[in-house]
């Protein structure tokens, strides 16, 4: 058996590759940097997390058609002199192997005014940071069509990330409709 295939070749490949594999996480923005990038004129960000009880979760899932896992949604009111500039919603969606952390900025009327990717830990699909791709979401409200391959163009090689971020934005717009819309004047 001495000239048969040597199983040592398997760990010889795997172990060095595992040791040498670079760190997955790429942090493009901290929370503060993302808030500043999306609301450069804001003087303050007031934390307004949305508790997602079962009834609210059901409503948001019904509005968006997207599954909701979290029990609360981190949200901040962007303000200047007490005037509402919009909402900063922090969210996570599945990548192929890890979560993608991103943020959606909504104007006071609930329209998308920007998106930023904070943490991207995936092996591929980082093209979702492309502002030309993200521009497809600008101005979209709850009820507007947001479907990958139809109203939202796909990026070849980044399909999973494109799909989940598209669904995530749809869920954020449903969250606005279900929980933030009435908060605008408070």
């Amino acid at each position, binding site marked *: *058996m001495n*000239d*048969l*295939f*040597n199983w040592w*070749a*398997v760990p*010889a*490949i*795997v172990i*060095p*590759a*595992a*040791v*040498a*594999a*670079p760190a*997955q996480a790429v942090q493009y923005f901290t929370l503060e940097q993302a808030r500043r990038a999306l609301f450069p004129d804001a003087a303050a960000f007031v934390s307004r997390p949305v508790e997602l009880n079962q009834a609210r979760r059901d409503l948001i899932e019904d509005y968006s058609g997207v*599954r909701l896992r979290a029990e609360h949604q981190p949200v901040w009111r962007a303000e200047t002199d007490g005037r509402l500039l919009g909402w900063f919603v922090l969210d996570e*969606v*599945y990548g*192929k*192997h*890890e*979560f993608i952390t991103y943020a959606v900025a909504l104007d006071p009327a609930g329209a998308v005014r920007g998106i930023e990717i904070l943490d991207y*830990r995936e*092996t*591929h*699909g*980082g093209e979702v940071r492309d502002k030309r791709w993200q521009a497809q979401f600008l101005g979209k409200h709850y009820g507007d069509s947001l479907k*990958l*391959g139809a109203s939202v163009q*796909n990026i*070849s*090689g*980044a*399909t*999973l990330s494109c*799909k*989940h971020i598209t*669904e995530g934005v749809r869920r954020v717009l449903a969250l606005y409709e279900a929980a933030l819309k009435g908060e605008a004047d408070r």
Partner: protein
Amino acid sequence: MNLKTFALAGALGAALGAPPAHADENLFGYLSGAETLPQGANEAYLWVTHRTDKGIGHYSAYDVTAEYERGLTSRLTGALALRGQSIDTHGIVIDGYLPGDREYGLRASGLEAKLKYKFLSPLIDGLGLAGTVALEHNWLDPHSGRDKDTTSLTFGMQLQKNFLDDQLISVANFAVESAYAVRKPIADLPPGFDWPTDPEMEIELTGGAGLTYRVAPRWFVGAETFYQSEFETEVGQERWSWHAGPSVHYAARTWWATLTWLRQIKGGGETYPGQTDTHLHLVEKTKQEVRFKLGYNF
């Protein structure tokens, strides 16, 4: 082909660092999904399959495949593969199939060229559908280890449906392989041993299904099963067998690995005299296989 050199080259490549990986990881050992590589993306694979146990004597064979894939378009992937095998069998003589003891180390055994076209994306269209066509030529018989020229053309279809935010992935595969094979004569055959060297035609049908779930970041755990049947010129349905087993998949930034243990659950067709496991096909198949796949993106 020197596998140790291949292994060292792979390890060195990883140690030097590499650009980000791309899609189309193999979540299963034997089945495949409906996704293709992005245009311009490259992937190198190394597969090792260990086949053991025919219920008599000693049988241990390794099949090795080194494959290169490239995304020709966003829907079309092309692949070239070099195959190798080693075998160590003794104490088994099966008339017409295994002429006697055979032992050798890794030898190049065949070449394959394959195209995969994605008709529907599982992520965009809801149900993924891909088709494959593969042309393969082998010059070693994987069962006996003897010289046998086999040229085959395989048409395959892959279906993929994702659930639970694409964390639960199901696939179904179907394939038809047509092969033209000629065995080379053997000088020292046992007396009366039948070893036909006339050309023969073989048709192999395969159907399978698999399910895998992302249990933790980077980790998928699942199971796969397939049924395979072969029809051959002289004996009609030569064999059929049903296999199943678990698969574990891990993905890092530039590489991924999949380990599958496959057990033959049931089988039939040709048997050898004195075969005790009569519910299995052990003439060409073994009781179990273990397959390890390593993919590297660049």
